[in-house]
């Protein structure tokens, strides 16, 4: 099969051997005795709206029972990962660098691990919409780290068909091996999930891309495809180079198609799912099990690096206990060394996005050498898989010339970290991009809020104007009824009403002109409303990258918003002070 190439990328040391020596272990289940018998299950674990809690303190829940209902379609349900009693629905610290808290369902496990009644879901007997709702309610989200609700990606796109379904088993980031082990050990289940995706998306073919540094996973997956006799599926070894596992990069490598930033990949005939997601789909559809656990790599500064099948909600100290972090541990990172986030502590829970807990030490990740000025050497541009000019983005972000940064495609940056990895001046380039993105979004949401406030103000003015006139009209009518004052009233009414109206209207702004006309007809109000509506329409024309957001974009915004909190809370000595 012809493979394509993407520009840039880097080849850091992979450090993947250590955690692939032993098979996936079951993470210590919360036991009934001891201190570690609580699961903390955040309600908000995917891109999109925060699910509504369905339980309250005191309720008994079963394993797999839905405890948070999706908030609209752009959301995904959450479930109890084991049976037990809800002890609290309260704010708890999140696996997020800012240490920000969010609503969690805290369950005291009863140790019985008692399932709900599990029913396979025969998607052949249901409409596509029903299947999507089922997956939403089963809490299936992208497990590659982006936690985008899977049901939102299951539509074939234009023409009701998809050319190519891409299954991402590249796993390009150093240290992370959860997909590798999953593919080695549960290849057939993954392929069953791929079959479901293929059917739902009416995909012509499925390509499973795996980096060629995982021969065992490649062999296992190839064997599973052959065993299933799937002529329309192929397992493809792709060259090992970070970030080959980025969705856009993998799509490019396998098909040659470049999906531009902010576009639906289905419009280009491709859609990409992580192998872990395919596995979760299989469990949800074929076994009737919602997403309540995932494979998590524990690697880095630990005595026994390993992969665990961990229940969602397992506190990290429980997860880490068996791998024994070494004494010089100085941080916990969720994700890999290129894109991972530093966690605020070890009591935060495993969530659906937790693909890896990387235990750090000064030896493993020494503090970066002092930042030097950019010498425009262009190394970053050579390394950028999005073909950006990172040093230009850096200049503009640093100088807070955000318009220019956007012109140079700041929002096409996938924050892969390749540029900062190669920079001889040790500039934390990605921090600057996160900062610039967050400032731009903050500005635009402030602007949107201001627009909304102005709108509300104008409509209130309109309402008051209308009420004033109605009152005047009523007054006029009443007065007119009084025969004695008939002539006076007829003279007054037109005067009073326009006066009230024009006072309001001049406060409103440009719509004042029509009010100067005689006010006997209802036309001033109509004109005012029309003008206000016109303005409202005009205001919807905002900068190009905030209109008609696709779910992917909204997801990105949400992710960026999350990082903003992180940036704001962390001291930024290298950012120029606000002037």
């Amino acid at each position, binding site marked *: 099969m012809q493979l394509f190439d993407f520009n840039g990328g880097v080849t850091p040391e992979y450090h993947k051997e250590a955690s692939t020596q032993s098979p996936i272990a079951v993470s210590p289940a919360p036991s009934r005795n001891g201190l570690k018998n609580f699961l903390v299950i955040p309600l908000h674990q995917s891109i999109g709206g925060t699910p509504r809690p369905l339980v309250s303190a005191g309720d008994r829940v079963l394993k797999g029972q839905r405890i948070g209902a999706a908030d609209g379609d752009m959301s995904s349900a959450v479930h109890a990962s084991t049976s037990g009693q809800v002890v609290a629905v309260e704010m708890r610290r999140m696996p997020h660098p800012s240490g920000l808290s969010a609503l969690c369902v805290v369950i005291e496990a009863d140790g019985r691990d008692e399932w709900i009644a599990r029913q396979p879901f025969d998607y052949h007997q249901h409409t596509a919409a029903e299947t999507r709702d089922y997956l939403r309610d089963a809490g299936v989200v992208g497990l590659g780290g982006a936690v985008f609700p899977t049901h939102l990606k299951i539509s074939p796109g234009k023409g009701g068909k998809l050319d190519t379904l891409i299954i991402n088993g590249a796993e390009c980031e150093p240290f992370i091996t959860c997909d590798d082990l999953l593919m080695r050990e549960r290849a057939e289940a993954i392929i069953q999930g791929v079959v479901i995706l293929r059917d739902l998306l009416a995909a012509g073919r499925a390509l499973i891309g795996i980096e060629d540094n995982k021969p065992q996973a490649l062999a296992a997956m190839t064997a599973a495809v052959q065993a299933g006799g799937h002529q329309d599926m192929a397992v493809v070894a792709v060259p090992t180079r970070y970030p080959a596992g980025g969705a856009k990069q993998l799509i490019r490598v396998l098909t040659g198609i470049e999906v531009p930033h902010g576009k639906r990949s289905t419009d280009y005939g491709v859609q990409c799912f992580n192998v872990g997601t395919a596995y979760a789909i299989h469990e949800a559809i074929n076994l009737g099990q919602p997403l309540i656990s995932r494979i998590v790599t524990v690697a880095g500064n630990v005595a026994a690096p390993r992969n665990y099948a961990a229940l969602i909600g397992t506190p990290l100290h429980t997860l880490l206990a068996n791998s024994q972090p070494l004494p010089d541990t100085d941080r916990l990172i969720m994700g890999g060394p290129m894109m991972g986030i530093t966690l605020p502590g070890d009591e935060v829970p495993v969530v659906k996005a937790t693909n890896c807990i990387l235990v750090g030490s000064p030896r493993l990740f020494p503090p970066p050498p002092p930042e030097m000025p950019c010498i425009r050497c262009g190394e970053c541009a050579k390394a950028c898989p999005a073909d950006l000019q990172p040093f230009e983005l850096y200049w503009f972000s640093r100088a807070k010339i955000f318009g220019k940064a956007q012109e140079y495609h700041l929002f096409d940056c996938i924050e892969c970290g390749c540029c900062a*990895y190669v920079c001889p*001046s*040790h500039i934390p380039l990605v921090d600057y991009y996160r900062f610039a993105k967050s400032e731009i979004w903050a500005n635009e949401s402030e602007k949107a809020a201001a627009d909304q406030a102005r709108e509300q103000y104008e409509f209130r003015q309109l309402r008051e104007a209308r009420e004033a006139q109605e009152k005047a009209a009523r007054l006029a009518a009443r007065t007119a009824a009084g025969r004695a004052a008939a002539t006076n009233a007829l003279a007054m009414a037109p005067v009073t009403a326009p006066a009230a109206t024009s006072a309001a209207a001049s406060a409103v702004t440009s719509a004042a002109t029509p009010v100067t006309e005689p006010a006997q007809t209802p036309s001033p109000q109509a004109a005012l409303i029309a003008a206000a509506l016109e303005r409202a329409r005009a205001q919807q024309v905002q900068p190009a990258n905030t209109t008609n957001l696709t779910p992917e974009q909204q997801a990105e915004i949400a992710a960026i918003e999350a990082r903003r909190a992180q940036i704001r809370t962390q001291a930024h000595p290298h950012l120029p002070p606000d002037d």
Partner: protein
Amino acid sequence: MNNSPYLRQATSVQSVMLRVLFALLPGIAAYVWFFGAAIVLQIVLASLTALAAEALVLHLRGKPLAIFLTDGSALVTAWLIALSFPPLAPWWLVVLATMIAIIVAKHLYGGLGQNPFNPAMVAFALMIVAYPQFMSRWPGTDAIDFATQWQIIFGLHANQALDALTMATPLDALRTALHSTNATTVTVASALAHNPAIGLMAGRGWEWIAAGHLIGGLWLVQQRIITWHLPTAFLATLFLLAGLASTINPSEFAGPLFHLFGGGAMLAAFFIVTDPVSAATTPYGKLIFAAGVALLTWIIRSFGAYPDGIAFAVLLMNIAVPLIDMATQPRVFGHKKNGSNHHG
């Protein structure tokens, strides 16, 4: 605690600069072999001046001394100045030039990474305008001993004897011959035929220095310190122009090999137009920038008043860099056109 990425390649400005210095060694070795050790003395003078000037300005600007003094960038500037100046120039010329390069051309513009003009070339251009008489003190290949060279550099040598000891560069020799009073009868061939400065392809000794720089430069490409774009575009353009002109009118214009090996072309191709700070940065931009430098160099060499026009050519093209970079933004992943701001 820093944010992702937590991994970083083992690289630094210092290691980049040190490798550039290392790559200059073959050319320097050839220099010493053919023209004596005077160049080493000039390199030492320039280096010491550069470090002192750098330390002074860093101190005045309140910048951390240890980091910036050891980044190697001042040394690269110093070495390039020493290598492009005549080795028998008086000591203060190189010292003054280096001070101007570091204090004015580098730090007045904001220091490392900020200078729009190549500091070494700024210094060269100013000195050749201000002190043309000293800028022609090139040693002959009939080795003057180091003691005499030392005396010349420090002004201890009787000036009358200087003419006998110095010699024009091949480029200068050719230009002088072609522009002399009986220029009508002089052709490139006749001017070069009887000149002791002329060797196999270009100048005696000069061609070997150029070869040394070529070797060092290719090593820099192999080390991924520089990309092929700048040197290739520079050398190819110079080669084509000189080739074309000398084919059309061989009596007036020197051939391509003479241009490539007879002056500072190799040094320029791999060490001067490749200065990342002041050169264009996009792939197409680099090609345009280097081709522009070559074009201007050839024009100044062929028609101008100065023997070698590289410094002026580089400075002129430095002015155009922001424009070139803006006009040659590469296509962003997934976008159709270069530089388009709107998606799709």
